[in-house]
């Protein structure tokens, strides 16, 4: 079973990477960014299906919102065209705003749900929106003492 980690810091310091699981893109609805809802079998005993499913569903909805063709995107497009696209130098597009929201969401999910289970989700934008990469960690120093423990035990209060 996965060791409990309190936070991302401990995950990075203590754990060693076992494997990476990739959730591929789902192209059944065209070129819109969507990730497959299929649960990877390697994560069967690491995380509940509903939690991962919920994360993927939320991410898909964020991407759909970013790529939605509607009133606001038309306004942005027409305004940009009218200013010979100079406005893109000063203004952040709606897509970029949503991508920042997604980064924040993934960070939050990592802290709350995935790091405690020894997993880490990489933001798809870092992988060119091709895959949703989930790194699986195993606790490195479960038996012996690690080099950093010598200085820590001296300062811990009893």
């Amino acid at each position, binding site marked *: 079973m996965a060791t409990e980690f*309190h936070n*991302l*810091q401990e*995950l*990075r*310091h*203590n754990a060693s*990477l076992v494997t*990476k699981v*990739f959730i591929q*893109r789902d*192209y*059944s*609805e*065209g*070129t819109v960014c969507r990730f497959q809802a299929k649960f990877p079998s390697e994560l069967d005993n690491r995380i509940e299906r509903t939690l991962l499913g919920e994360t993927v569903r939320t991410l898909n909805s964020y991407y759909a919102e*970013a*790529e*939605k*063709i509607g009133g606001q*995107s*038309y306004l942005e*497009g027409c305004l*940009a*065209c009218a200013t*010979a*696209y*100079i406005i*893109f130098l000063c203004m*952040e*597009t*709606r*897509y*970029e705003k949503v*991508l*920042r929201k997604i980064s*924040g969401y*993934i960070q939050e999910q990592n*802290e709350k749900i995935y790091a405690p289970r020894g997993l*880490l*989700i*990489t*933001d798809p*934008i*870092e992988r*060119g929106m*091709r895959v949703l*990469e989930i*790194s699986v960690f195993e606790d490195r*120093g479960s*038996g012996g*003492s*690690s080099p950093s*423990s010598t200085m*820590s*035990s001296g*300062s*811990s*209060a*009893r």
Partner: protein
Amino acid sequence: MHLGVSESMRECEYSQISTRSSTPMETPYKKKTSKKRKWEIFPGRNKFYCGGRIMMAKQTGVFYLTLVLILVTCGLFFTFDCPFLALQLTPVIPVIGGVLFLFVLGTLLRTSFSDPGVLPRATPDEAADLERQIDVANGSTGYRPPPRTKEVVINGQTVKLKYCFTCKIFRPPRASHCSLCDNCVDRFDHHCPWVGNCVGKRNYRFFYMFILSLSFLTIFIFAFVITHIILRSHRNGFLNALKDSPASVLEVVVCFFSVWSIVGLSGFHTYLISSNQTTNEDIKGSWSSKRGKDNYNPYSHGNIFTNCCAALCGPLPPSLIDRRGFVQSDTPQLAPPTNGITMYGATQSQQSHMFSMESKPIVSDTETERLPPHPSSSSRAASQ
């Protein structure tokens, strides 16, 4: 007991790292280890300028020709024809000409300098994972398997996704590999030597606006130069008019030969936009009804208006290759991934934190991560 609890809580607090520096783009890491930016190690055959902000194809000779033709023709027009026309007809003519010229130049530079939608190559872990999946599917027999394809049904139409051996990815629908730039480009239209870049998802609208406005500009200059010569001929005779304004002859020649190709190209791309196809698909006849009765374009929105709006006014996706981000320090394969927002560090001052494998990512503006004084969980267990 309660001491133990506060102990563990204290261990979860971290000392603050100061990561804010005076200049948003430069961080202490850059000065210490002189890190490379990602554009410097970009695997494709592209040229980068201005520290990675400008991206072009390798062969840019024809682009400079385009630029020279436009600048020279317009320069001659404004210098020799506009004064006469402004006086004789109306000063609105140079104004409209000026606006068109600036728009053409703006869209040309935007098309040439921006990332067309290059798909970054797969990381070694991804490539290995894909290879594993393909081997499982084929049953590893030892010899190189036939070209790998994956079929997917999009809106009722079966589309084959091809595997790109260079980029080690299954190309998304409508993506294609440009052999000149050696990159996979999303919604690949064509490689245009006149703009010195590929035309893909991110710069197609700029390209279309460029050729459309150039058509108007060419016709505008052609019409008014002819008008100029005719008005002069009324006064002094035709030959004298040509002698008085020799530049006009050059302009007429350039415009006459350009107008056919440019207006033709604009018309062709208007057709492509209204049917939501790429040049690549049209040339191959991917969605042509000649291929089969049931063959139709699954990406079309149904009506011309929506297709045009989607192509020209739809959301502009950001660049996937993060040219100005810093390269992470060398890590062995299956090293812990970085999880952060380096791309948006370039644009947002509050998130201007670059980080490497050893550093800690910044969670948000309000929260700062701190180094743990007692990083090891085993030592905590021992102290309790």
